[in-house]
């Protein structure tokens, strides 16, 4: 009897078990893993991915993809850099040299516009979310190239970069931001009507609608959030990287999805928590860091990441199997005869 209740609990918190496992494994294999310095490092490297994962998790919970996220990050980053810097070599900026504050506002505005566009196409024009955001992925990356003509924009004001590479005492600002953002996201999805509506929409959109939830409005809202998160991440990335490289974010979408999924956010919607997603991000970053410290070739790391995702997914698949089997047992096939 107890094992039947223990197993689902174990499976639900799988990500933390995996994280714990990774921490144990790596701290035994290398000496320098479990140090404050290294942990801080892990968190810093998680910042941009983490913010993007928050945005993606919001859409995934409602059962929708936002494949355009990586391109949004790229466009907003280079656009921001472009607006703030002088023209000509070596800056390659626009020459407009807007104030960082104004630029930031514009960056967020762009993020919201893209999110709004995605949302409208998907809910009002009833287009498939995969296709729409896929197309946007391509278009927006193209726009990024258009802005910079392929060149890297440099000369970003130091103040602007503070979020990405500044510190408050011993703690990097980006880490504070990362944790605060996840805390806020967790809070919203746990304790607000808005957040709970999202789970209903993703879990059973008909049930949600019948209960009076405006599902389409919620979907449009999560796309706005995703767009805003991309802007936020762009701000951090510009600080971290220091320059506006046209290819910022390229191929990141896979890692974003992987971190979310590995953290328990179901691709079908309605399941998973922000906390779990954070766990997914931390796990991937930890593996990165640990393997690095073990001086494993940088290239093997990607491979290991992929295998970890596969393994986690295999376990997850068993979890779904398990859930449906126990539900069947509860139903009892005998019927009424």
């Amino acid at each position: 009897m107890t094992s039947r209740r223990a197993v689902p609990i174990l499976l639900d918190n799988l990500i933390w078990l995996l994280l714990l496992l990774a921490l144990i494994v790596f701290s035994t294999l290398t000496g320098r893993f479990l140090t404050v310095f290294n942990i801080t490092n892990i968190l810093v490297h998680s910042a941009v991915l983490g913010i993007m994962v928050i945005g993606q998790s919001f859409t995934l919970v409602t059962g929708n993809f936002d494949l355009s996220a990586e391109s949004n990050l790229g466009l907003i980053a280079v656009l921001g850099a472009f607006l703030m810097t002088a023209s000509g070599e070596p800056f390659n900026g626009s020459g407009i040299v807007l104030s960082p504050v104004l630029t930031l506002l514009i960056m967020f505005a762009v993020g919201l516009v893209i999110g709004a566009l995605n949302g409208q196409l998907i809910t009002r024009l009833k287009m498939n979310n995969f296709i729409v955001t896929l197309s946007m992925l391509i278009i927006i990356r193209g726009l990024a190239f258009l802005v910079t003509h392929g060149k890297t924009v440099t000369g970003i004001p130091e103040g602007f970069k503070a979020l990405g590479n500044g510190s408050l005492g011993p703690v990097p600002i980006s880490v504070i931001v990362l944790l605060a953002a996840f805390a806020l996201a967790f809070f919203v999805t746990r304790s607000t009507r808005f957040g709970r509506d999202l789970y209903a929409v993703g879990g059973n959109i008909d049930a949600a609608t019948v209960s009076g939830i405006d599902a389409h409005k919620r979907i449009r809202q999560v796309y706005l959030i995703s767009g805003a998160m991309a802007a936020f991440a762009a701000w951090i990335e510009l600080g971290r990287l220091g320059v506006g490289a046209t290819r910022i974010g390229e191929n990141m979408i896979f890692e974003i999805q992987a971190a979310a999924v590995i953290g328990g956010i179901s691709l079908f919607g309605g399941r998973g928590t922000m906390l779990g997603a954070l766990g997914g991000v931390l796990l991937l970053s930890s593996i990165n860091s640990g393997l690095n410290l073990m001086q494993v070739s940088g290239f093997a790391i990607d491979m290991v990441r992929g295998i970890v995702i596969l393994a986690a997914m295999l376990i997850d698949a068993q979890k779904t199997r398990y859930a449906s089997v126990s539900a069947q047992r509860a139903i009892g096939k005998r019927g009424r005869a």
Partner: protein
Amino acid sequence: MRPRSSTPFVLRHLIWFLVGAIVIFFTLTTRNFLTVGNFVNILFNASVLGVLVIGQSCTLITGNFDLSIESTLGLSGLLGIWFITASGPPLYGSGWMLSPALSILLIHLIGLGIGLINGLLITKMKVNNFVVTLAMLITIRGLTLLVNNGQTAYGVSQAYNWIGLGKLGPIPVPVIAFLLLFAIAYVVTTYTPFGRELFAIGANRNAAYASGVKPETRIIQVYMIAGLLAAFAGWMLSARLTNAMSSMGQGSVFEVFAAAVIGGISLKGGQGSLVGALGGVILLTTIGSGLNLMNVSVYWIQAIRGLIILVAMLIEAQKVRYMGATTGTGGTKGR
């Protein structure tokens, strides 16, 4: 042959009308568009994408995604050259000095193997196809980086490079290869039991099973085909470029989807035709080529391609709505 419904001819063969419209547009706005040379060039540029689209279309027809093909392409392209060249600078091969023929054989076997793994994980282990192929995409790319430590390998074997650079008469070999493969794929999917079963599985897997089809076997087979074709595409690309960067093919999976979907292959499965998919490939490549000839900045081209996809998908969504409206909710509800 696509089952008939009440949609007008234009909507059903939308993609070719779009291609026609684009061709007309570019003929009017640029010089030298409507030449044989240019068409051959377009096909040449389309060939690698085209081969990938064949594989993806087959899996999509069964209602499954294969995100890993871009990484399989990368791996096989690298290994293809790596197997046959000397180690160290300037070629950075493995030093094993295998014969080109053996190397080519091996990379295709590897492509098949990757497809087999995908298929097994999805059917036997019941893991979601998006997630499996996503994880494989990451893993195999990692493997590719690992093989040569991220170093580009350079290939100078004539025999190997023939598939990318050779010509049969005036026509480049890749063009022949890609058109030939499309033709084969078209014939197989339209006229053979195998192909027909793929459509059945994608359209209604349960009904297909109840009709004697073995969906699991077929799904494993299409993933193996996708893997095989991705390996072939890798060969073609690395041969044409005469080198293989470890990032080769990265990011291309989206264009593959775009071309397939824009050509009428439904993401839900069970619908679409290889001819349409070919149209999608040609459309995207033609736009790129035409814009090039118009001296449009390279950076506009990317954005415009994405826009065309979006517009085409918008039209597609309206078509689905329209069909739904004219035929009603379909079926009797006896109770």
